């Protein structure tokens, strides 16, 4: 019998982080306009520096809103 791998619709809802949870460590490659150079953002370092973090996601460069 042919088994199709079904994606549980609950997975689409459940696997992202919720308000009140701890954010896992992550790093991001960045462009720093002040230095005019590429760099790296480390969430672990941010916590060591005891700073708040605001992540501002947006769809795409060279677009409008």
């Amino acid at each position, binding site marked *: 019998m042919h088994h199709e791998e079904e994606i549980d619709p609950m997975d689409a809802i459940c696997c992202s982080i919720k*308000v009140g949870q701890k954010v896992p460590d992550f790093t*991001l490659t960045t*462009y720093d*306009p002040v230095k005019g150079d590429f760099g790296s953002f480390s969430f672990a370092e941010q916590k060591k520096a005891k700073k708040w973090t*605001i*992540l*501002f*996601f947006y769809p*795409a*460069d060279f677009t409008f809103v």
Partner: protein
Amino acid sequence: MGAEVIAISCDTQYVHLAWQKHEKMLQDVKYPMGADPTGNLSSLFGVYDEEKGIALRGTFIITPDGLLLNSEVNFFNMGRNIDELMRKFKANIHLAKKTNEGCPAKWKEEGDKTLTPSAAMVGKVFEALQ
């Protein structure tokens, strides 16, 4: 104000460089522009649109200890109000110092009326806000 702001999209860091240098509206940008081309970080925060390969308009405020306190997500065609982001951030700063207080809906900035929940306040929030 003591927070690190990072703007993140699924473009690479090269596109960020090109855009920031080209678009005059971005000439005063001083915060890092993060690249999430795999969509992994966007997925972690539940804003990745797999079909389109781009992120929804999500803003997330995280404490120095790594706790996610605020989440705002809009569909692609609606921008977020920066005054509201500042209001929430200032409220978080206040509440981090005054852990027994709450900022009511009309709280805008330091000095505005807050609530200190207690058994005596049950059923009497109206009076507490006068």
